[in-house]
């Protein structure tokens, strides 16, 4: 087991959900898995510092100590974030979106290439499809310089399966090459299995399971096999 790189504790009510989460991130890629409304997105948003009404504590391992980010302003947390619903900047072109936080043109070009957006770089994001917006949002997050944590909220909404499978592995490769740990949110079993990530299962605001994808998602795997006709 790798060293813990982030510690997050979130408590408080968000709408109908009462959150009570203590999470230690150690894997290069951790997946928060759970049904809609279980509070997964709130956990990511709390880490970003976007939910000041909740009781949150957030630490990052730096060098040989811990840095407390709980009171750090949102824009100084060195987090790359691709939120649910893409939240692209509708007044900017594809490449301007990707370059929003980027430090260099090289970083923009690399992110555009990673997410197969090169051909549409000069187009306005108003005219592109939902899946393409999602890729713009991911590319924008991957172009953030000096990020220490990558947060991806339902990153493949509207992206077709083949593209997703392809992107997922390339994203994993890129994140590991740059040494940036990832915490992603999904309710898609396949996504978790493909990544072979550390899976944290969330239900109704609480963590109800943790381990490798195959272990934690055994029930879902069995159901999938039944659906596909492998088992009676």
């Amino acid at each position, binding site marked *: 087991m790798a060293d813990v790189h982030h510690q997050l504790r979130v408590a408080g009510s968000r709408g109908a959900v009462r959150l009570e989460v203590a999470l230690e991130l150690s894997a290069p890629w951790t997946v928060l898995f759970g049904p809609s409304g279980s509070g997964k997105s709130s956990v990511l948003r709390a880490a970003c510092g*976007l939910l000041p009404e909740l009781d949150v504590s957030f630490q990052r391992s730096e060098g040989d100590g811990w840095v407390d980010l709980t009171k750090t302003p949102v*824009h*100084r947390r060195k987090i*790359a974030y691709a939120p649910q619903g893409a*939240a692209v*900047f509708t007044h900017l072109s594809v490449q301007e979106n990707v370059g*929003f936080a980027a430090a260099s043109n090289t970083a923009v070009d690399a992110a555009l290439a990673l997410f197969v957006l090169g051909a549409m770089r000069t187009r306005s994001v108003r*005219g592109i499809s939902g899946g393409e917006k999602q890729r713009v949002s991911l590319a924008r997050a991957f172009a*953030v310089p000096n990020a220490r944590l990558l947060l991806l909220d339902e990153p493949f909404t509207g992206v077709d399966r083949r593209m997703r499978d392809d992107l997922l592995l390339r994203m994993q490769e890129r994140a590991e090459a740059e040494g940036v740990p990832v915490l992603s949110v999904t309710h898609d079993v396949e996504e978790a299995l493909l990544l072979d990530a550390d899976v944290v299962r969330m239900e109704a605001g609480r963590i109800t399971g943790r381990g490798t994808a195959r272990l934690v998602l055994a029930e879902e795997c069995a159901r999938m096999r039944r659906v596909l006709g492998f088992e009676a």
Partner: protein
Amino acid sequence: METSALVLTLRLAGLTTLCLLLIATPLALWIASENSILRKIAQATVALPLVLPPTVLGYYLLVGMGPASGLGHILVKALGHPLAFTFQGLLVGSVIYSLPFAVQPLVVGFEGVDPGVVETARVLGASPWRVFQRVIFPLARMSFVTAAVLTFAHTVGEFGVVLMIGGDIPGVTRTLSISIFDLVQEMNYPAASRTALALVAMSFFALLLLYARAANARRSQLG
């Protein structure tokens, strides 16, 4: 038409617009982000000049800026003269009188910006100023045009406040709307009607500009 009155009116309206955009932008940002009772109190206060007779506003400003009041006393000490019956006094009055015309469109504009987009920009490392400059301002730019045009046109057309605190001094505080009043009192109807027509034309073109811009913005959003 008196050229000095025209120049004065345009100068007053231009400076009022400039001052108001600077004041109204942070105020509207705060109102749009706030959700407590304070927001309602602020909105009601900002909207007051809409419903008050301009003479009431002018009266309070005249008394407030006069040497008899505490504030007026400080102003006299600081400036060496009272603010009433000066161009600066007129500017202060115009800024307060047109406040709702600048704040309201900006509040609507800021509320129309997707909060998710603003949050994302912050997380991606943009400082509050950069978020405003790169995200909020461009997304709400039509509201700035609306606020500027309405403020300008409304200042050109104001009468009661200007008369109360300006006192109709030629070249200093006599604006076009007041010069019409003077001309009518002098029974100089031809000159009054020329000035009145000029004001109608100015206001009409300001509003035409506004609606043309709004239609363009809608088209480009659809396209």
